[in-house]
């Protein structure tokens, strides 16, 4: 017994005396980030936030855009490009001298192969490319390398040029190392099973290791054509709990905390050792009102609900620092985004509208709500103001997969959701919020307008016309018109636009939070 006691005491003392490790090294960036959404590392399949961020830092595309002003599109792996007079042929001149970490030089063939591969594999994000008329059968003719340095892409119609170009900046347009990928091909899978957990690109960083639900480690690409980054290594640790992330940041065991809530952010802001970095994201938060519900299908009820939300109050409390008021389907920063915010909390006006619609005493309705922060808090705030107008809102909490399954099957009354654009062109959101080519239950295409059973043949035509308008000024005008009508009549109560925030140690500079999820970049990070 005594021996045991001595052993235990000795062990405890040894543990307590273990050397305190130095804080994060000067040439490594350590970050806490919820990365459990990564299900693949193959850019032809990546469609998740963290996955997109990984690809953004490790895979170059033909072109890119300026984060401050997305209308400024510039060459990355392509040095320059031209568009034919009929607007259907895009010719890219590749940048000479780019070499993959494998040692293979990058050619136009790699770029052509990457796009062809994404279309043939036809994974979730493939529609971003197939909407230009590419199919597995025709893609070899429509996208091809005419010589080592020239890539030609031919679309089926003359679309707005920026629409095509923005889609070429998306994750799915990342350039993979053809030779390396094909070395790992099994049964004609174009290297899909291998690339799911491996890496074959060129970018400022390259993959070192991915441990699902645990960590993602990147190494610097010392030979990067655009100059090697300052950080030798980037270590991303999957830390679920925001409060834990905050403690780690406070102690200096991480340089950046990525998933902080309003509570943690105010602490981070007041701490001299840390600061808050923000960037306006394209994601918007909205309520989807199912038109299968009789009350919600009345235009005046839809309008009334738009007056029953305390936008300002929520912006100052439950979504403080995380969101900014926005009420149109195109996020700020997009071509033709409508920035007007006509709706504020107005109980009397809402009551009048409800009475006109035949609901002077309000009505009962349910809302499917993800049980995560801040969605749940938002739902509760909405429930309180709805009640003031006489609308009895029952919140049905559920896990993400569960509520989404119900929403996709059109079994909801109200769904509180978040939608992020897939690429920087306005069509991405117009396509889902303002288009519904077929409102039947077995429709081929099921955009958000379909999920809420909103039948809009006229608006669908307007959105289809806007994507073919080649004059940017006219096109912006068209989107403004669609949004104004949408804002007034649609069953979407658009409330906020996301601001992405990170808590950063004072000595860490240069982390960029760009407008899209693959624009969060580590390349320019330095530590003092």
């Amino acid at each position, binding site marked *: 017994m005594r021996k045991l006691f001595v052993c*235990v005491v000795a*062990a405890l003392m*040894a*543990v*307590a005396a*273990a050397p*305190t*490790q130095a804080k*994060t*090294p000067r040439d490594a960036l*350590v970050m806490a980030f919820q990365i*459990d959404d990564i*299900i*693949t*590392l193959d850019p032809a399949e990546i*469609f*998740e936030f963290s996955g997109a961020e990984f690809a953004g830092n490790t895979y170059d595309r033909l072109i890119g855009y300026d984060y401050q002003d997305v209308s400024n599109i510039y060459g990355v792996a392509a040095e320059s490009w031209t568009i034919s007079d009929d607007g259907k042929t895009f010719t890219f001149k590749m940048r000479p001298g780019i070499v993959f970490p494998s040692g293979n030089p990058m050619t136009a063939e790699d770029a052509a192969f990457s796009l062809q591969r994404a279309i043939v594999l*036809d*994974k*979730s*994000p*493939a*529609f971003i490319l197939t909407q230009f008329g590419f199919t597995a059968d025709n893609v070899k003719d429509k996208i091809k390398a005419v010589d080592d340095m020239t890539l030609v892409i031919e679309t089926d119609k003359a679309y707005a040029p920026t629409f095509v170009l923005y889609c070429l900046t998306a994750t799915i347009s990342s350039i993979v190392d053809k030779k390396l990928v094909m070395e790992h091909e099994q049964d004609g899978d174009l290297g899909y099973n291998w690339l*799911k*957990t491996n890496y074959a690109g060129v970018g400022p960083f390259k993959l070192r*290791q991915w*441990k*699902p*639900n*645990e*960590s993602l*480690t990147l190494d610097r690409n010392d030979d990067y054509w655009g100059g090697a980054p300052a950080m030798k290594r980037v*270590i991303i*640790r*999957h*830390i*679920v*709990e925001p*409060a*834990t992330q905050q*403690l*780690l940041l*406070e*102690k200096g*065991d991480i340089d950046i905390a990525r998933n902080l809530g309003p509570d943690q952010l105010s602490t981070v802001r007041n701490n001299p050792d840390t600061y808050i970095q923000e960037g306006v994201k394209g994601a918007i938060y909205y309520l989807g009102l199912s038109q299968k519900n009789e009350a919600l299908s009345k235009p005046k009820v839809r309008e009334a609900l738009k007056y029953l939300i305390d936008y300002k109050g929520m912006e100052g409390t439950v979504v403080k620092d995380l969101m900014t008021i926005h009420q149109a389907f195109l996020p700020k920063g997009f071509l033709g985004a409508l920035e007007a915010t006509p709706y504020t909390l107005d109980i009397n006006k809402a009551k009048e509208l409800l009475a006109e619609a035949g609901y002077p005493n309000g009505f009962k309705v349910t809302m499917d709500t993800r049980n995560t922060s801040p969605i749940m808090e938002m739902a509760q705030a909405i429930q309180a103001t709805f009640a003031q107008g006489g609308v009895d809102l029952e919140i049905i909490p559920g*896990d*993400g*997969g*569960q509520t*989404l*399954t*119900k929403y*996709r099957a059109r079994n909801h009354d109200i769904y509180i959701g978040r939608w992020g654009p*897939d690429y920087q062109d306005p069509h991405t959101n117009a396509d889902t919020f303002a288009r519904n080519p077929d409102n039947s239950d077995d*429709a*081929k*295409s*099921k955009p958000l307008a379909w999920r809420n059973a909103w039948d809009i043949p006229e608006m669908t035509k307007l959105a289809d016309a806007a994507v073919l308008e080649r004059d940017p000024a006219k096109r912006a005008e068209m989107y403004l018109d669609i949004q104004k009508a949408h804002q007034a009549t649609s069953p979407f109560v658009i409330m906020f636009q996301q601001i992405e925030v990170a808590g950063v140690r004072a000595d860490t500079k240069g982390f960029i939070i760009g407008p899209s999820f693959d624009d969060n970049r580590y390349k320019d990070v330095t530590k003092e």
Partner: protein
Amino acid sequence: MTNQTDRLSRAGAGFKGLSLPSPLRTVVNLITTVLLTFLGLLLVTFIIGRVVPIDPVLAIVGDRAPENVVERVREELGLNLPLYQQFFIYVWNVLQGDLGNSVLTANPVLEDIKRVFPATLELATVATFFGVILGVPMGVLAGVYQGRWPDQVIRVVGLLGYSIPVFWLGLMGLLIFYARWPWGELVPGPGRLDVFFDGLVDPVTGVLLIDSAMAGEWEIFWNAAWHLVLPASILGYFSLAYISRMTRSFMLEQLSQEYITTARVKGVPEWRVIWVHALGNVRVPLVTVIALSYANLLEGSVLTEIVFSWPGLGYYLTQSLLNADMNAVLGATMVVGAVFIGINLLSDLLYKLLDPRAR
């Protein structure tokens, strides 16, 4: 004492008619019942997984995929087949050693489990160790001083262990002993190792204390041990609460027996009466209690794993369940089942060693 294997042996009693030699019969019965248990476990989990209102395709294709991709993936996963066919296909694959791939991690389920289970095993073992070395003496004291202040203090300590959410306790522990500790930090932050040590030791068993010791990497060993202290203490506190309460009631039962009075009358020293005579008779049921509490911890403690960023079985299982990642759920369930059966067998074995009547 009724436990699972006893029940299992009875369930397999039909094989008695085969008139095999007795030890062989026991083994055959055991194997049959273990297989039947696994099959039942899989069937129930499978059905639960299929009736939950979550579309498993969503985890793979996400919310944005066009309808044709959704339908194609549904077919690739075999989800368009009738349920019983899906189940048979799964069991057939398992029999050939293929647990399938997890859609969330893109890895074979077996590989995932090899990664997450040792983390849970390490944490649960150390936690149970803490729970036992503190819980048993506390329970004995509480029994001996029934109704007096040591009993009251231990009761409150136990009650707190039962009632404080582990989530809160974990965060407070981190706040006090890691973030706000006035002299540097008493314990390290969350995770199994400091970032710099991550990946430096080849995973042989997956249990860091063993792997680092085998590799002679003592710095990593101490770092891993140091990282274990807080989460294991907090988990251990919960098993302590349970173990001390149970020990107390076992002790009370023994202390009221006549042989105790006899021993006291004979002049046996009081410490010997308590720690040898009474506790000696308590050890048999105590083994079951400890085994059960250990088995519970081995299922993984989701909240502790989340607070301490501990990549264990509990978090893996929960994430998989919430995304209807059935291969992963079924694989992890089998591990949990195997743990329960294994621990039951072990406690049976110990029972026989400790109790002469059972030999």
